[in-house]
């Protein structure tokens, strides 16, 4: 059986990881795909822990409940209201720009090397589109809650 101290320690560790990721996201408007996915993953991880602990609210000490409230507030105010909408907007803009760039590309006959180099841009576009789908699923979850 996990003790309250263990739970509290685990929550501290995970929320510290989240705070670091939030700091990076606040200072950098142009997160790469890996950073975006890592940040959302950690938000979901800490949110799940918080939800689970709140379900056992009566058995939790006040210090842990305070901690949970602070974490929830940080996710709601820093991430959900600020960083998440900005990431959605940045991804959409970036997808539009890359799509436009690829659509307006030179249509002259290209060399094998040019085609294979351009294919990397297409791959980036696919990654951004799939990340946008993931981020949109998160957004949908916010309104379903």
């Amino acid at each position, binding site marked *: 059986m996990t003790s309250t101290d263990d739970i509290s320690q685990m929550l501290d560790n995970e929320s510290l990881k989240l705070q670091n990721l939030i700091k990076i996201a606040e200072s950098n408007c142009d997160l790469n795909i890996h950073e975006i996915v890592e940040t959302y993953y950690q938000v979901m991880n800490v949110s799940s822990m918080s939800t689970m602990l709140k379900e056992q609210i009566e058995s939790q000490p006040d210090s842990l409940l305070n901690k949970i409230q602070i974490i929830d507030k940080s996710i709601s105010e820093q991430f959900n209201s600020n960083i998440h909408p900005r990431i959605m907007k940045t991804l959409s803009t970036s997808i539009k720009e890359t*799509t436009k760039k*690829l*659509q307006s590309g030179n249509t002259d006959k*290209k060399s*094998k090397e040019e*085609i*294979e180099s*351009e*294919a990397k841009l*297409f791959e980036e*576009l696919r990654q951004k589109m799939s990340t946008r789908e993931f981020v949109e699923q998160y957004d949908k979850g916010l309104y379903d809650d």
Partner: protein
Amino acid sequence: MIETLAKNLVNLKKEFASLYEGHSQIQEVIPISKSELFQIEQQELELLHQFAAKNPIYYNSYEKVIGRTPCIVYEGDINKYWLSSIQHGSSHAPFSPTWIMSAYVGALLAKKLGYLEVIDIGSGDGRIAFCGKVIDMESYSVEIDDMLFDLQKFLCSTLDYNPRCSDAGIFDYSSLNIKQPIFFIGGLAQMGGVSLASAVLEKINSIPDLWPNSGWVFAGTLSQKYASDPNNEAGWGTLIEKNNLKSIQSISLPTAWAFHESDDTPYIFTQPN
């Protein structure tokens, strides 16, 4: 004979995939000539090569002996067609082709099963319809994307496989005057295929003379990347049951999207119960 041909093609693909060192987005091979493993009429093989050589999705080709089969490797890129196809609100599945040799084997099996016409739905560059025509079946292809339709118009100067630019879910199939058609549905069940197939099934079901004589071919997947279907059939079981179809044969064939996978693409041949 067709099953052996399919098996030899899958082995050829496995050998090729283990040797391939290029960087193209899609790649496929076609044997150069008739051999013990590939007992195909030379004239038909040459038509398949013509289709690939003329097709602008391939930007490079070279000869290579794979196993003991001399082949031509075709390297291609479908990115611009993918980009065009995803712009369509009603496009169900983005374009990704089967191998030309797989389209040929699929058409051979359709003919052996007694069908008279190949209808290539969500046809991409129309290669399944083209292969139907290669073996003297009547063929039609239906494609919603105008860029791909233009490509088909260009390609069908070799053999006219009757391309139509239309949403397959609203196309008037009675206008084709078909009697015993087999419909090849483009796209995996999990990638928009169910929606596309359901719309076409509904259209054909409403033509009483046609429905009992029709055949339906679905490209499935065994990949764990995709959700499985509770009724199996490589993702198509629920649709097959819901539409009162029965599976009559399944063959595995190479496709562009399964090139790096260990399992090839199962093609499920079905008909109304």
